[in-house]
């Protein structure tokens, strides 16, 4: 029975985190965009920038409110469903969540209220500073959470107390700036900016297609499209750097992502395929030696550790095909988005985009792709550390998901929470999918004129 409770607990946490995880990246990217256009408005006083900012602020308030609502069960889930984890790792993890709430999240939420309700009530300098605070609050918040999440991948800076078996923090600096924090922060934040800029690009494309708000929509396309293009180009580079870290610190995850069973100095790179976990082979299209080459650009032969060798050495192997496919889905959706925005911006800068209705339709729907990419990337990272919740690192033995589970939790409780939470998530998503398009279609200026959105 306990293994069934474990399964339900994992499903619940996965759903909570996954359904939450489309909102915070959008918030981050919108906060970044608002900071840019609000700064442009503060220094040039051009009304256009103010209108663009008001538009983005209105989107931000919806996304932020739903992000808070969907994210609320997560910190509590550590106590509800993962009580053993909370007791074991509270000395760091609880502290980190409290730091996030007091340092960053307060700043963000208080000043989002100011941005939305306060433009006419304060001096321009203070209003601009509020935009800076929202940017800082949201990004520091993301940094603190990614530190905690990265620590679960590479838990540096701690040891186990021999007597009590509890976790002792040796250095909060070493814990927070553990080896994977830096690259994972850059990879995630850039992804967040990409998500929001593609959403804004889709809005601009919708105005183009319906020939609404044209001068403003062009300005929106210039700003959002440029960010979208830069971030979409940066993502594969940062993703590659991130993969190098995974290969170094979690070779089992890396080997599963790439479907490598036999260790090899000329490991192949699969472009697509299907992992047969019974027969231990991958059917698909591969370029021999390319993966090894990628890991060090051919400087010297690079031996990629295969799952057979790792398993023989006692390293647990995560679910292989699941993360093999989700990793490919991330790369596929990300690069498709890059292709679309590259072509779209070329058309836009040549002034032909507005006549290409089909291209505009494609650009509108492309907004979905970065979301799929970030979710499948997250899935790859978290399923890839199974069966561990905290991955082993140096002398620290790690903690498995099984060990982390609340003891003696009645199954009925899980059903109750699964039904209740998911009912709320359905309502939240209905609201989101109805209002987001409605806010966008209402037009950029409608959010400055005092009409109901």
């Amino acid at each position, binding site marked *: 029975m306990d293994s069934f409770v474990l399964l339900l607990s994992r499903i619940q946490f996965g759903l909570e985190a996954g359904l939450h995880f489309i909102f915070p990246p959008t918030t981050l990217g919108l906060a970044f965009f608002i900071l840019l256009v609000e700064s442009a408005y503060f220094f040039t006083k051009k009304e256009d920038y103010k209108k663009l900012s008001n538009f983005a602020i209105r989107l931000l308030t919806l996304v932020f409110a739903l992000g808070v609502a969907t994210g609320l069960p997560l*910190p*509590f889930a550590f106590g509800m469903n993962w*009580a053993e984890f909370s007791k074991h790792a509270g000395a760091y993890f609880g502290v980190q969540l409290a730091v996030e709430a007091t340092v960053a999240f307060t700043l963000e939420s208080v000043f989002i209220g100011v941005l939305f309700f306060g433009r006419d009530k304060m001096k321009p300098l203070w209003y601009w500073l509020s935009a800076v605070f929202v940017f800082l609050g949201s990004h520091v918040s993301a940094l603190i959470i990614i530190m905690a999440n990265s620590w679960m991948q590479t838990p540096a800076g701690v040891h186990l107390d021999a007597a009590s078996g*509890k976790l002792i923090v040796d250095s909060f600096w070493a814990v927070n700036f553990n080896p994977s924090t830096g690259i994972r922060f850059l990879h995630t934040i850039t992804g967040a900016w990409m998500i929001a800029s593609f959403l804004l690009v889709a809005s601009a494309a919708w105005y183009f297609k319906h020939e609404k708000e044209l001068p403003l929509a062009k300005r929106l396309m210039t700003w959002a499209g440029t960010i979208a293009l830069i971030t979409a180009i940066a993502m594969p580079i940062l993703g590659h750097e991130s993969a190098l870290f995974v290969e170094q610190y979690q070779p089992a995850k890396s080997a599963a992502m790439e479907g490598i069973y036999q260790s090899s100095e000329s490991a192949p790179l699969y472009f697509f395929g299907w992992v047969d976990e019974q027969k231990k082979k991958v059917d698909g299209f591969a370029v021999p030696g390319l993966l090894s080459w990628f890991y060090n650009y051919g400087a010297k032969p690079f031996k990629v550790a295969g799952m057979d060798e790792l398993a023989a050495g006692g390293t647990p192997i995560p679910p292989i095909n699941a993360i093999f496919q989700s990793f490919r889905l991330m790369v596929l959706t990300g690069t498709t988005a890059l292709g679309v925005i590259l072509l779209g911006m070329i058309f836009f800068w040549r002034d032909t985009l507005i006549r290409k209705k089909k291209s505009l339709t494609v650009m509108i729907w492309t907004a979905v792709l970065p979301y799929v990419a970030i979710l499948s990337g997250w899935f790859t990272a978290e399923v890839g550390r199974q069966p561990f919740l905290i991955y082993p690192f140096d002398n620290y033995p790690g903690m498995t998901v099984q060990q982390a589970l609340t003891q003696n939790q009645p199954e009925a409780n899980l059903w109750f929470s699964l039904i209740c939470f998911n009912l709320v998530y359905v309502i939240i998503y209905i609201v989101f999918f109805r209002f987001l398009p409605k806010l966008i279609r209402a037009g950029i200026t409608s959010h400055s004129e005092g009409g109901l959105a």
Partner: protein
Amino acid sequence: MDFLNNLAFWQALWFLLIGAALFLFIWLDGFDLGIGMNLPFLKQENQKRAILNTMWPVWDGNELYGLIAGGAIFATFPVVFAGLLSGLYPWLVLVLVFIMLRPVVLEAWNNEMGSKALWEWLFAGASFTIPFVAGVALGGTIAGLPYNGKMEWDSANGFWEVLSPFSVTLGLAVVSVCWVHGSTYVVKKTTGTLADNARANLPLQLGAAAVLLVLVVVQAVLLPGALTSFTDGTHPLAILGLVLALILVLGGLATVFLNYKKQSETLAFVGSSSLIAGAFVLIGAIQFPTMVHSSLGNQFDLTIFKEGVSNPLGSLQFIGIVAVIALSITAVYSILVFRIFKGKVDHKTNPHY
């Protein structure tokens, strides 16, 4: 500065800070919960919009202190965090669901989606359930929850275990106090019939709060072992706290009663704030140094000084220093933000929402 390396100092400080965070939550979110309970009973759309306008810019910031209180318990007493949350599981689901629904319901109401009456009743239900369950859970920690010698929740039935006449009375008392607090806030922030209606409701609300608080105190005195911290002579602070609590509660009730009809509306709000502060000092005085009483025996009580209940010294120091600095800054900008939105509001105040 030797006390900074004293574990007991940090444990006691965190007991106070968690109490303070819970107070801030009920004090700040209390008025918008109280407002929410009244929403479906208002007749006109304009009145509904006007009372929502009183809370719109600040309520999500207010709610944050509930999250901070939860985070603070996790950061300092993870055993209590894990035990309470996993033990009170279904109750927590109920509260979380309603907290999650509040902003969504407001967006739906504001955007004229579906039935407005449905959203209003949902909002009112949420505004009732959140303080009620918070009070019941708090009552459970005072009356005793099934903690065993391994500091684990020792019962499969978390749903009924927490219910007792005492905890339910405390839950209703918290609701009534939020109700009073919402009305004094509306009196402070609005004009005309809306403020007059709130004034007309206040005597009933005050009476209900007073009766429930008396019932809470009477039952608390009758709880087994409740008076030990006052009678064993080792806790002069407890008696001091009790006196302070009585002054705050009685002074608060009197201040509201004497001022709610006058034009100096701020004093009534100060009165209801004092009422809430007094209630928290009272609970702190009764509980210290225990976080959760065990219903399986006094020796199993989770007291803050007990070995293994709190996090190690290094963690308490780190989060202590970060939180004190961060919350001081938060206090400054929160006050500045409240000043931006000060003054009376009506249904036309936030036109672009």
